């Protein structure tokens, strides 16, 4: 191959590369804007907030004896979301957090289980996981009670006060 041909090949490759970069740039989306990220955060916190309400008895169908999740798990303590999936001896298999939530609903709370894929269940999980944010994921830890993040005031996540008495 003489020098002219080599330079021609390099030129073709360079042109192709430049073209693909242009096409890629045209197809790729921009990073999320601050406003978009704020919307996503707002949606997440709305789910967390709904989860907290459910956690404290806002849906009467998930308890027939008055007990709410918060009775045993204030601030989601000892709910151990970061340890799921894990083997649950009472069930005899590896289960996800949502299975455990429904076990608590149907057993100690004697209530009707939530749809495992429904918004309520996602909200319950969102609340528990949000209160355990930053904690190390440790699937299978079964014998230790774990603690959520330290909540000094308020509800444990950004929330505007309603003035009625459940938040600050």
């Amino acid at each position, binding site marked *: 191959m003489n020098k002219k041909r080599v330079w021609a090949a390099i030129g073709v490759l360079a042109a192709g590369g430049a073209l693909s970069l242009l096409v890629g740039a045209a197809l790729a989306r921009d990073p999320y804007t601050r406003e978009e990220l704020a919307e996503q955060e707002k949606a997440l916190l709305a789910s967390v907030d709904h989860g907290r309400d459910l956690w404290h008895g806002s849906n009467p169908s998930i308890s027939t004896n008055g007990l709410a999740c918060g009775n045993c798990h204030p601030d989601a303590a000892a709910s151990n979301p970061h340890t799921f999936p894990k083997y649950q001896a*009472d069930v005899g298999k590896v289960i996800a957090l949502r299975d455990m939530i429904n076990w608590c609903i149907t057993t100690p709370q004697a209530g009707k289980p939530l749809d495992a894929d429904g918004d309520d269940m996602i909200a319950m999980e969102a609340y528990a996981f949000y209160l355990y944010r930053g904690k190390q994921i440790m699937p299978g830890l079964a014998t*230790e009670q774990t603690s959520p993040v330290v909540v000094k005031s308020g509800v444990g996540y950004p929330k505007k006060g309603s003035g009625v008495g*459940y938040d600050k």
Partner: protein
Amino acid sequence: MIDLKNASRRDFLSISGRAGLATLVASAVGINVGMVEVLTAGTSKKITPFRFAILTDAHLFSIDDHKFDIFLAQAVEQVNAMSPAPDFVVYGGDIAQNGRDDQLVKGRKILSKLKMPIHFIPGEHDWYLDMGAAWKGHFGSPTWSMNHKGVHMIGMNSILVRDFWTAAGMSAKQRMDTMEMLESPIAGPWGVREEQLEWLKKDVKALGSETPVVVFTHSPLWDYYPRWNFQTEDAPEVRSILSKFERVMSFHGHVHQTVYNKIGNMSSVGTLSTSWPWPYPDVQLAYPEMRMTRSDPAMIQDGEGPQHIDLEADFQGTMHYDPFGNMLQPSIKDGFKI
């Protein structure tokens, strides 16, 4: 854990005889050998030894044949079967879940089966629907003292909060709902407040420092975990008033768990509920050996039950948790000195 500074020769011999010198040495250098030894000096004034029991935190609902009714009745049977029998029982608060009169009536009826006298202090679940009106109608004053076999016993209402409801225009039910939630930040810290502090000063004024004193409150008289009101805001003032005594024992409900602490002349002991166990908050405990095993949610009575205390002639005490199920660490299974 040994308080060698305060251990008497008799205590030393007791330890040596019970656990052996190896245990003593191991404990002295900080090795946990699975035995709890909290030794404290007694009082110079002797008492007539006796036993009393504590029942607390039944959280009864307005639902017939609720499992918590059965648990409380079972705890009553357990206390009635104790031998020797307790001289009396103290109920540590939260008979009701929602402060309703029918819940208090139900609790009073179940507790009426006790063979021995019972004395009551309130919890927040008993109080905030009608600001204690029904509770006081059933159980009398929440502030009391009595002398029993040489011990001065005190009960106080430690769940008093500042008015958070009037300005917010809350109904009585909203006020009660707010207080029911352990992690509700609205209500703020509990306390015994000025009126009871003045009462306490007067109550103990004429007592000599050698008088053995036992105090009952719903919440701990130390800052355990304020977020969940595992505290009493003016506990430092209470402890200051009681600081003249050689020894004070404090017993509290609310925490639904085994826990122990010692501050100055006061030893503080938490109690099991007959309803559900609370998890331990993220706090470094001075006496972690007193923690109970993590309760198993599949066992509906795990982590619950009554308890009793044996007081000896020199005002040494032994704390016995009497859980429905087997959930005590070996270190506290046979009781521990308080």
